């Protein structure tokens, strides 16, 4: 085999290959450079991620590595969101990492590796690559969660995440092996062909599928597999929470969509009730449990469980409209999360971070712009028109109604009303309560920029709704 034909084989995965080579180079550079390599490495990582995004946009629709790897519009859409999330989390980590005494140049590199895992997850077209990419993403995340090894909270959160994550990986792998046992193939295309030719499916295959769904639901933190989320969100440093809330969830949800819609489309009748059940439980737990929270990071954890539950409503529709609605929802979710976590990062008092909701009292007097931005995010998350969150929810519920899932849509809307309570409570605390002790002035320019930028995007989202919806529509056909 000559060089030219080798290149044509690996071209579809060029973004991933570029990412690996750059990450390895930076690892070497970080090791041999002087003790102050963190800043250079972080900026190089951001440049590399942006270059990867360009490569992603330029890639074509094709299958590669004998059907192991797929590059389609859907994967590209998700990969752009993932890269956006990774760049954001590196940007907001600067201030935090500068304060720690160690020169943690590995932190941005681990984000690169986890991004690689997530990109492979969205492009996986085979159960083997599915498992490998999930593991690559998770192992890097376990380390990132524990990166502040001197604090008890961070190590505890990391250990919890690791033990439960390993358990869920085991469940996922068990599901994969059962599916392989009953279909005789690991390839998604092969499974789809098997299911379309064999009309009678054995219960064993369904059991395998349930194991697979459970493993993936853990990674997306769907109730009842959500127990780790509040503890991990609270325990890890806030920039890491921002990373956890965004990119891994989007990637795992994308994998979820691809597995359900592409190989198991013919089993829709079997998995639709399971997905519907999971989404109902998630929106209700996310809505009800968040009411009692006093820590804003725990609140965001339950809020994200509810958000993922709404996304699953779109998946339960099981058609292209449903996938479009999930993509729209994820787009609005991305900007809301970026904004909200920039806001949480700006919450500092006496030069140390504070995380209680009660610390926000009287924010409208002391930090009017931050209060306004946070109000916009809260209103957007509770789904008030014309903010971005409203459109996300609107498309989700429309797709559910199109697919005759009236009960699901009704429960979803009901839980939106419940969750509006705690979003509005934050606004009440910020605007109508007297400040006991004001927060510090915002010093981190990057967080401030992300805060204001995403607030603007959310307010003016309705202007770009048509092009974004068209892109989501063209990206909703999974597979080639």
């Amino acid at each position, binding site marked *: 085999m000559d060089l030219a034909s080798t290149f044509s084989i690996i071209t579809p*995965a060029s973004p991933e290959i570029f990412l*690996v080579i750059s990450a390895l180079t930076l*690892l070497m550079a970080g090791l041999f450079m002087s003790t102050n390599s963190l800043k250079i490495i972080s900026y190089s990582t951001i440049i590399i991620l942006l270059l990867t995004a360009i490569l992603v946009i330029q890639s074509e629709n094709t299958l590669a*590595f*004998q059907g*192991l*790897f797929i590059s389609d519009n859907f994967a590209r859409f998700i990969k752009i969101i993932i890269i956006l999330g990774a760049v954001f989390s590196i940007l907001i980590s600067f201030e935090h990492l500068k304060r720690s005494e*160690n020169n*943690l140049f*590995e932190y941005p*590199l*681990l984000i690169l*590796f986890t991004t*690689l895992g997530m990109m*492979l997850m969205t492009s996986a077209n*085979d159960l*083997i*690559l599915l498992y*490998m*990419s999930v*593991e*690559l993403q998770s*192992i*890097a995340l*376990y*380390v990132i969660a*524990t*990166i502040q*090894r001197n604090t008890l909270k961070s190590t505890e959160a990391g250990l919890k995440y690791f033990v439960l994550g390993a358990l869920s990986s085991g469940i996922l792998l068990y599901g994969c092996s059962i599916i392989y046992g009953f*279909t*005789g*193939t690991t390839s998604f295309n*092969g499974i789809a062909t*098997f299911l379309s030719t064999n009309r009678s499916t054995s219960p064993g295959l369904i059991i395998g599928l349930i194991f697979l769904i459970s493993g993936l639901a853990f990674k997306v933190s769907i109730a009842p597999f959500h127990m780790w989320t509040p503890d991990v969100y609270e325990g890890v440093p806030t920039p890491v929470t921002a990373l956890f809330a965004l990119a891994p969830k989007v990637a795992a949800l994308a994998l979820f969509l691809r597995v359900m819609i592409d190989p198991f489309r013919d089993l829709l009748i079997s998995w639709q009730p399971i997905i519907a059940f999971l989404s109902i439980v998630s929106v209700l737990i996310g809505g009800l449990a968040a009411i009692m929270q006093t820590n804003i990071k725990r609140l965001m954890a339950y809020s994200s469980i509810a958000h993922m539950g709404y996304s699953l409503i779109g998946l339960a529709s099981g058609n292209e409209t449903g996938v479009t609605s999930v993509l729209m929802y994820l787009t609005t979710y991305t900007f809301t999360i970026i904004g909200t976590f920039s806001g949480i990062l700006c919450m500092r008092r006496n030069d140390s971070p504070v995380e209680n909701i009660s610390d926000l009292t009287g924010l409208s007097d002391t930090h009017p712009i931050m209060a306004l931005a946070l109000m916009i995010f809260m209103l957007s998350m509770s789904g008030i028109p014309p903010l971005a969150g409203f459109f996300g929810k609107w498309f989700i519920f429309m797709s559910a109604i199109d697919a005759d899932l009236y009960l699901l849509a009704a429960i979803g809307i009901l839980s939106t009303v419940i969750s509006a309570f705690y979003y509005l409570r934050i606004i009440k605390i910020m605007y109508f309560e007297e400040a006991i002790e004001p927060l510090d002035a915002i010093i981190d320019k990057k967080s401030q920029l992300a805060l204001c930028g995403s607030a603007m995007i959310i307010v003016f989202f309705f202007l770009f709704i048509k092009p974004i919806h068209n892109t989501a529509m063209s990206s909703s056909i999974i597979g080639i």
Partner: protein
Amino acid sequence: MPLLALIFYVLAIVTIASAVMVVTSRNPVHAVLFLILTFFNATGLFLLMGAEFLAMILLIIYVGAIAVLFLFVVMMLNINLVMLRQGFTSYLPLGGLIIIVLLTELIMVIGLGDIDLNIAAKATSPIPYHVPNAEAIGRVIYTQYVLAFHAAGIILLVSMIGAIVLTLRQRTDVKRQSIDKQNLLLSEEVVELVEVTRSKGV
């Protein structure tokens, strides 16, 4: 093949007997050694089934790495087995229930006869005949599954980075010797000749 059957029964009996010994033996080092014996017999069972690759992997990974790791842990940590055993009777009802459930399932599977003995031949990617299975795996691992294989390599790299990041401590309070600096020293700078007067000291 009465000889193969005989070998099978010997291996199977020793496997089960040594597995029982792993759980019941009083000395933790003996338990680990019995575990190794179990693995060796399981290797023999794999060989009888014609799965020589799995047999090799079982030896290399489980005996070579994991069992030795267990041995290290057992020897380094002073584990009191009597303490570990204290909950035995309280866990017995639950454990017994699980055993009964598993046994019932096993009997039902065998009893119902719902096993397709030719399932291997019906698979989309059947076991290639006339080729040893180590070679069969080698043929696909670097061709069809090269991406997954490389992903596995990166997973190992990331876990190595993780282990180093989480455990390496750069200690500043330790005095270290620098050979270069030592060699560059001149005797005039560091050695001082002092005239000591008698019964006075320095």
